[in-house]
């Protein structure tokens, strides 16, 4: 009787139903080599378990625990009706946007800036617009895209971070409309991962409120990039 490697492995892991297990046991009794294979599977499992056990026993680094014990406490619950934005918020956002634009304009005009003001509000331009168009979440570069998602109006939005500005941009027929902007938090160099900071938490909270579902996964994002972020 032949015993498939998968079956033998499942036996070693105690993952078989009793009847199948009996069948494998009979085969093992007749073939010492199979018994040795089972023992090898179990030794490997024990070895891996023991090797990684110390990681789970270590204290969790503060920066990870802090993401759950400090910042998120202020994160708002999902708003049932997120459509109405208060006038106060609007003006605060406008002021914040002005500050950011001031900073961006102040950087000089020798190269195309990352933001352009239009009659319809602020839109991404230059390197920021290109990153929003083509760059995958998590990829390193002057602009980092933290996450992409579909907003409740079904349009695509992306949370971005750069040295000049952080914010949330949403795609519309005219381009990437900047919905939230705040001074940049990402250092020019570094690991490519952004430390959880206050602006981070604010943006995440805002994105959470706008999000219709889970963030896009890599495949979904790739598809969206290939389709130029058009929705239909």
């Amino acid at each position, binding site marked *: 009787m032949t015993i498939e490697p998968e079956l033998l492995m499942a036996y070693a892991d105690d993952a078989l139903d009793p009847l199948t297990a009996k069948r494998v046991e009979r085969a093992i009794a007749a073939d010492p080599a199979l018994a040795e294979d089972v023992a090898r599977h179990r030794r490997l499992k024990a070895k891996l378990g023991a090797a990684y056990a110390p*990681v789970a026993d270590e204290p969790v680094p503060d920066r990870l625990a802090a993401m759950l014990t400090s910042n998120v406490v202020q994160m708002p619950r999902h708003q049932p009706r997120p459509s109405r934005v208060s006038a106060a918020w609007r003006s605060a956002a406008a002021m914040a946007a002005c500050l950011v634009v001031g900073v961006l304009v102040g950087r000089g005009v020798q190269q195309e800036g990352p933001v352009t003001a239009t009659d319809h509000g602020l839109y991404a331009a230059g390197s920021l617009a290109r990153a929003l168009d083509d760059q995958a979440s998590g990829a*390193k570069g002057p602009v980092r895209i933290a996450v992409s998602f579909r907003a409740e109006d079904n349009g695509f939005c992306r949370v971005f971070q750069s040295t000049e500005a952080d914010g949330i941009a949403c795609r519309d027929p005219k381009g990437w409309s900047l919905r939230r902007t705040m001074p940049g938090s990402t250092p020019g160099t570094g690991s490519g991962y952004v430390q959880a900071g206050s602006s981070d938490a604010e943006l995440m909270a805002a994105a959470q409120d706008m999000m219709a579902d889970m963030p896009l996964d890599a495949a979904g994002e790739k598809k969206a990039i290939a389709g130029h972020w058009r929705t239909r």
Partner: protein
Amino acid sequence: MAAFETELLALLPRLRRFARSLTHDGADADDLCQVTIEKALMARNAWQAGTRLDSWMYRIMRNAWIDTARARSRAAETFVAEEAGLGVGGAGNAEARVALNEVDAAMRTLPDEQREAVALVLVEGLAYKEAAEILDIPMGTLTSRLVRGRQALMARLGEAA
């Protein structure tokens, strides 16, 4: 602190372990944990209370790692491994560090699809069915990846001892 955060906090040690077995590097593992927590917090409304948070988190982490690995290969980045042993058992004993380094090195040689199966079943101790659901693959695919991954690891880790 809300129940979601409390439950997530309790899962962090296991998530760090899973991250370590996926990334085979202490610093990368904690960066992956950070990204995973960010994503989970943003998507918290998509998690249904009463369902298993650990499976949900494993899935987010696994997908985040695929994204990271893809972005890296796209950037053709020269990956410089952290100093061996860094990040684990800072105060722990040398023997445990050596064992982990040996296993990390062996895990690094596996294709991603085998490594994630091995990590979920052999390191995290999940049932085949749970692992298959997290990876979104049929059981038969899981067991064949798992068996190949294990055979490669056995060969690599010199099964004699």
